[in-house]
């Protein structure tokens, strides 16, 4: 896979992920809705460059191997940062959210322990079988779900329902540090998710990497944005803290066209599985390579932690603080870390005696 292909993947995936706005620039450009994903794609592509460059610099090498080559004795710090972020992102960010959505919409009388256990068990099944099984399953899901998303997106953007999304958006969004940080972290996370396990396979089978990345990130991104686009354009302009805003996504579906929301909800289940299973598989994969822990054992322990943390009741303030915390952590782990690793790798592994051209 060439660098340009990788850049294209990053750009497309970033284009489809959570809205992110630069208020002034957005206003200057006329406030068109499509400007927002375009801007975030540019920022995301730059931020994710570290992961891409690192993958290109060490084809066939695992993340653990690259970290050791780049950081030497400090590799453990980098790996710990990435592992903790990937392993805990699912329960803190996604599973908790999904369980609240499920409880508030379809299963109000069912214990969240039961719904959580079902999703965690399903995710553990894939994670225990390895990252390859996870990525292949994602492809199957994409094969089934993506046509549905494409149909909905077409309806949304072409506007047969007279929702007018190609027209100017009704409001602009005040920019905040959280937006900026999350946008960078989300890009890095999405890429890390796709790259971590498939890294060693990237050199030989680029299509696996390509399809897994596209399908997972497309699903995550489109599903987050789509209900807003379809049903509640005003709320689209108020996205600030993505995990909390996902709840407003559900509200948006309630007030929207009722016959559509089951479909979007079902796709939500698929997307949540992609994130939770991907987190478990990715973290188990790193722990296996790094510490030699059996993959299924690591996945089992992480699945239990995921389930327990998902049941932890958190106040809104705490959730906002955690989002900020994880944004910073994620930014350091999957944006700053890979960039640093790539630079160190270049410095450490520049062939001796290499002569730079002098004008």
């Amino acid at each position, binding site marked *: 896979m060439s660098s340009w292909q990788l850049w294209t993947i990053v750009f497309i995936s970033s284009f489809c992920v959570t809205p992110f706005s630069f208020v002034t620039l957005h206003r200057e450009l006329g406030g068109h809705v499509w400007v927002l994903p375009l801007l975030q794609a540019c920022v995301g592509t730059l931020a994710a460059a570290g992961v891409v460059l690192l993958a290109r610099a060490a084809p066939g090498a695992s993340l653990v191997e690259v970290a050791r080559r780049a950081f030497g004795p400090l590799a453990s710090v980098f790996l710990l940062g990435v592992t903790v972020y990937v392993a805990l992102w699912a329960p803190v960010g996604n599973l908790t959210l999904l369980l609240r959505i499920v409880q508030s919409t379809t299963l109000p009388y069912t214990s969240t322990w039961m719904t959580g256990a079902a999703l965690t068990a399903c995710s553990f*099944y894939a994670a225990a079988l390895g990252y390859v099984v996870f990525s292949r*399953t994602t492809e199957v899901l994409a094969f089934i779900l993506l046509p549905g998303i494409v149909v909905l997106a077409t309806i949304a953007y072409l506007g047969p329902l007279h929702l007018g999304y190609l027209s100017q958006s009704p409001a602009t969004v005040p920019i905040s540090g959280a937006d900026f940080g999350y946008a960078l972290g989300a890009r890095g996370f999405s890429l890390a998710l796709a790259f971590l396990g498939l890294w060693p396979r990237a050199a030989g089978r680029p299509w696996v990497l390509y*399809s897994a990345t596209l399908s997972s990130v497309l699903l995550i991104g489109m599903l987050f944005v789509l209900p807003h686009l379809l049903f509640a354009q005003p709320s689209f302009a108020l996205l600030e803290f993505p995990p909390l805003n996902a709840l407003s996504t559900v509200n948006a579906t309630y007030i929207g066209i009722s016959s559509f929301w089951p479909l979007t909800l079902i796709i939500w289940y698929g997307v949540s599985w992609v994130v939770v299973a991907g987190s478990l598989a990715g973290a188990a994969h790193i722990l296996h390579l790094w510490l030699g822990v059996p993959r299924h054992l690591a996945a089992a322990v992480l699945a239990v932690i995921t389930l327990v943390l998902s049941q932890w009741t958190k106040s809104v303030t705490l959730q906002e603080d955690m989002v900020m915390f994880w944004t910073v952590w994620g930014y350091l782990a999957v944006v700053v870390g890979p960039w640093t690793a790539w630079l160190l790798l270049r410095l450490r592994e520049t062939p001796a005696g290499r002569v730079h051209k002098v004008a």
Partner: protein
Amino acid sequence: MQGRNMLSDLAATAQRLEQTLQRWIAEGWVQPFSDTAWLKAAFASDDLTLQSVVTAGGSLEVAYLAPQIDVTLLNSDVGAPLIASSRSDPRRDLPNASFVTQRSDVLSALLQGKAAVFKPGAPDAALVDVRVDRSRSVTQPTTEASLLGPKVAFNEDLTTSLNLVRNLLATPALRVRQHTIGTLSRTRVATVWIDGVTAPELVDEVLDRLSKVATDTLLSSEDLAQLAFHRSWTPFPTAQRTERPDRVARALGLGRIAIIVDGSPFAILLPVTLGAITKYLEALFGPPVTVIFVRWLRFVGGFLSMVAPAAYVAVLSVNPSLLPADTLVAVAQTRAGVPYPVLFETIGLLLILDMVIEASQQAPSPIGQTVTVVGGLIIGQAAVQAHLGSQLIVIVSAVTGIGTLLIPDISLAYAVRITKYPIMILAGILGFYGLTLCLIAIAIHLVAQESLDAPYATPFGPVRSWSLKSYTLMSRTRGERALRPGVYRPVTLRRQPKGGMKD
């Protein structure tokens, strides 16, 4: 003078040889077949027949297993030539006779339907093939019937089955490797592939697995598939079975391997993928547009047969708000008077449906159709009138039953019939949430399977763009014929030049 000396030399040599043989017999190096007591001891069976035949060269003993031989052939190929012969050893006049000196060879030959002729004192036994041919004639396929395709199916005779394949692939590159498996059954098994097309490592893997099979009886290709190629508890078939020689020939042309078992009318095709196993046969013969339409129709039908009952349960028992209010009222009215929860109602009626399908497959053809009609219409109607089920569940059951019949592979149809129950149960507990998770779990299970290192869920996961295109949209002329699927790792990918025409 010189000729006379040669004759005397020859006579002296013969005499020396005879003396040497007698000495070997005396020393126990060679066991003469002068008595047949060892044969009686070896078989100790009433169907072993020993007959004495008086000939010009003395009395001979003929042994055979009565059920294995054709009496007419025995009389014409053994009895008549022996009586007519005037030689000292009349066995030399037997047509197509072979001579063996080992007792084990005699035992194997008798089991294969040969007659053994012993001459007292002689160190060898003559074997003549007089086996009876009780195999069926070549008939039409029963499990893979086709309107437009060939009307030929394998039968239980390995030689006939191989003949049918060779007739379709008249190339010296067609390789057949025969094995004998089963310490008691001594079943002949043939592995077939095309040299230069099938990956050598694939052939080695199959031959290696077959060589490791250790069993006493091997009576069907299903037994062999279970022993050699089935590694997990999956209900999904990990070997494709077919009774059609044309399907075997096409598979071999794609770089796959066929295994034919003597005594079984089904060949095994390996490696197997979900794409291959769900490809219905008529797709090979119909016009492209029809093929695409029917392929999708069958795909949707098969999917519905797995999901429709669970969706019915999920909507009515857990997520009724998914339905518009008018529809919900209408559905509720159909269930008026039904005392059971939706889940029990659905499981009960689908179990009856599965029993009906099973009974119709077991019963003779005319009765089978009657069973289907009786089961499908009369029992369903009676259940509704007795308030044991709603009218809607009868429709759902009908869709499920018809969808199951649309699945091209009978083993896959069984797997779908089984998996719909856990999906239904989870949908009854967690609604669409449970249904979705269950489908994802099935997807995980499928992609985790491999058949001789080929990903089982190909072309869906991992996505193989060309195969997927060929499977879902492209016509057979442009898509399927141009290249061989890479998942089988064929030696050469291209099957024909672009456009399928010579320059």
